């Protein structure tokens, strides 16, 4: 399980028990999780003392609907030991809304920056950040913050979703294409980056033949420069293409200008595949991907027999783990 002590968040700062700060908490009657009456005696977690104590006080203030400065402080203690506690994050927003000074709001972003990397996999902190940034109507910290996060994990799912949100919401598309080219160059197997590139194309370019051809050439180049066995650019290429008109139509997503273009509009795709089949050895890792793209083209051309030959080879030689799938794809 993940480290839930949260100690790593506040290196060097000792946790101070509540009862040593008597003046502030003297009037609070902490609430136990279970009374003798409602204790079920099952599924009980062996909590650490700091965790249990923070929650006892938090329950007490929650039950009296307290929105105050000490509640704002308490949520920070709760988040430190129990970052998944979504109500603590919610109450934090409530406190900021009700009693937050200009300084509190600015400090909130600093606080989130500070604990951001330690909580990069936590759902609540990303949502909280979105609410705060939306409220402040100021995305000026966001790209820099992202840099640290993506350095720590360049496939962080929350981070990419968040980036999609703020780039769109604040219309910050300038410089994004250069950014993503660098990300892909640094780590060509990072599919999150490829996926983000598709989002950018979708929002900054016309889905015409020219754009699609450029993107396919770009992806082919990445495969050749880096490695054949990189599923991400292969899927990226095939994401722009449809085998038939019917498929192109069926792939249209609601509220989106993205579309697939008929593969046979790009004869260079077939030529490139045929050349690659010669350039690489049959046993090469990723040889299947060349065949899969070629297969799309052959189906697009209506060459049933040739397509079935490729399917048979995939089922038996190039991609036997997916034997059942290739049998399913057999054209009758």
């Amino acid at each position, binding site marked *: 399980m993940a480290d839930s002590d949260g100690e790593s968040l506040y290196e060097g700062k000792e946790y101070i028990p509540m009862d040593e700060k008597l003046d502030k908490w003297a009037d609070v009657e902490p609430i136990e999780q279970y009374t003798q009456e409602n204790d079920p005696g099952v599924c009980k977690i062996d909590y650490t003392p700091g965790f249990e104590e923070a929650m006892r006080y938090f329950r007490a203030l929650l039950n009296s609907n307290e929105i105050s400065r000490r509640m704002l402080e308490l949520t920070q203690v709760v988040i430190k030991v129990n970052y998944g506690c979504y109500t603590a994050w919610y109450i934090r927003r409530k406190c900021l809304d009700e009693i937050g000074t200009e300084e509190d709001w600015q400090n909130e972003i600093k606080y989130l920056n500070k604990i951001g990397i330690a909580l990069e996999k936590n759902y609540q902190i990303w949502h909280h950040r979105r609410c705060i940034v939306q409220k402040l109507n100021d995305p000026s910290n966001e790209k820099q913050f992202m840099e640290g996060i993506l350095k720590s994990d360049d496939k962080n*799912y929350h981070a*990419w979703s968040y980036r999609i949100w703020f780039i769109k919401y604040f219309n910050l598309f300038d410089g994004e294409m250069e950014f993503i080219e660098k990300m892909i160059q640094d780590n060509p197997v990072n*599919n999150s980056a490829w996926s983000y590139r598709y989002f950018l194309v979708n929002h900054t370019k016309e889905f015409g033949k020219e754009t699609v051809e450029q993107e396919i050439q770009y992806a082919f180049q990445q495969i050749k420069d880096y490695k054949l066995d990189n599923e991400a650019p292969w899927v990226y290429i095939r994401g722009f293409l449809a085998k038939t008109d019917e498929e192109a139509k069926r792939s249209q997503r609601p509220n989106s200008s993205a579309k697939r273009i008929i593969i046979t509009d790009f004869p260079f795709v077939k030529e490139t595949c045929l050349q690659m089949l010669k350039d690489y050895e049959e046993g090469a890792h990723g040889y299947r991907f060349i065949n899969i793209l070629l297969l799309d083209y052959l189906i697009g051309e209506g060459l049933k027999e040739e397509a079935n030959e490729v399917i048979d080879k995939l089922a038996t030689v190039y991609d036997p783990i997916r034997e059942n*799938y290739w049998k399913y794809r057999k054209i009758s």
Partner: protein
Amino acid sequence: MASLSESLKDLQELIAEFYELADYTPLGAKEYNEKDMCNIDKGTHAQFALNNILSLNYGYQSVDSGSPWLPYWLTNILEITMNPIEELPSVLRKKLTKFLKNLHNDESGGFRGQISLQSHIASTYGGLMAIVNIGTEEAYQIIDKQKMKEFLTEVFCKVKQEPSSTLKSSEMKVGENGAYIMHENGEYDLRACYCALIIADILGFLPDPDLTEGMSDLIASCQTYEGGIACNPYGEAHAGYTYCGLSCMILLGEVDKLNLDRLIEWAVNRQLEMEGGFNGRINKLVDSCYNFWMGAIFEMVDMATKGKANIDGQWLCSQLALQGYSIFCCQSSEGGFKDKPRKGVDVYHTMYALAGTSICQHKSHFHQKKVEEISEENKEDDPELSEGDDFDEVCILSKNYNNLLARLSPIYNARMCLVKKAKEFYKEN
């Protein structure tokens, strides 16, 4: 970023060592015949679940705010390993019921993630599924149906709220039209849609446009160029969200809004040739929780195509290779499963590893029908509603039939007989 490729290489080497010790390869799974090497120790895993019902170590603090999930995961492990809850001492069932009752929100409906917190849709799903597994009237009665409907209505995004910085940060409702948010002022994504729809379905609220309008279009717009489904529009396809999205589309009867061919293609490629298990996104590492999130997708696409997406009853992945990954790489001799070698076991991975293994031991109901030439019209419409525990035609690594696990519904991730029983109760009450 060399370190990422290196961690993949390390992991693959480790897995290769495990397989070598067992004289096994994923590609050779069909011919594998070392029965004694590939036992699933069901009794030990059941004991692991029981031990955790009695006490959980502090590591579970990280799921404390989703505590109704715990009895669901634990009871599901017992059900999958064929230790039915109804055979547990009734005092244990009563205690589990009490645990859930404490977490029910009597004021605004649904379940809280923990005492005093707000109601949360994922915790509500976990709590309801635990109740389904416990299966007693006392447990069913915890739920206040009227309040539940109010809670669902509260967190449903019927009309998209116009974003504005004039709103208070604690009053924003950020979901797209047709989405569910997790809790008041919480985040939205397709997990919430799935949880809400399962709840509405089991409690008999469907069809109801007030709870589902716009959802199928939202899910369709989350299908990516890769073929899988993302957490929200323009994101990256992910096993968990693809599972949630596809389940919803089946329950809504709107699978046609997806490009199913591309979804299947993306799904089959999540199985890794060397590891035998699934990853959850392109170029990510194998993880046993995807046994279920991915494995269930294969049965669901077969359901969605009315039995066309199977080969002689088998799913379009390699069911045996998936079993091999679970048994040789993730199973702990002390009970429980880990996500991958060198990790520790935990309740979450144990349940989803076992659930996916079960799905991959069984075959298509449609195929069974063909074989047995069943032509009962009433079952034809609703094949997933037939109980499959009795089918003798299964797909088990090394034909080690002692390993057979209880069959689950891929949509609910529970035994179908228990789901049916709960549905019947809520229909009447």
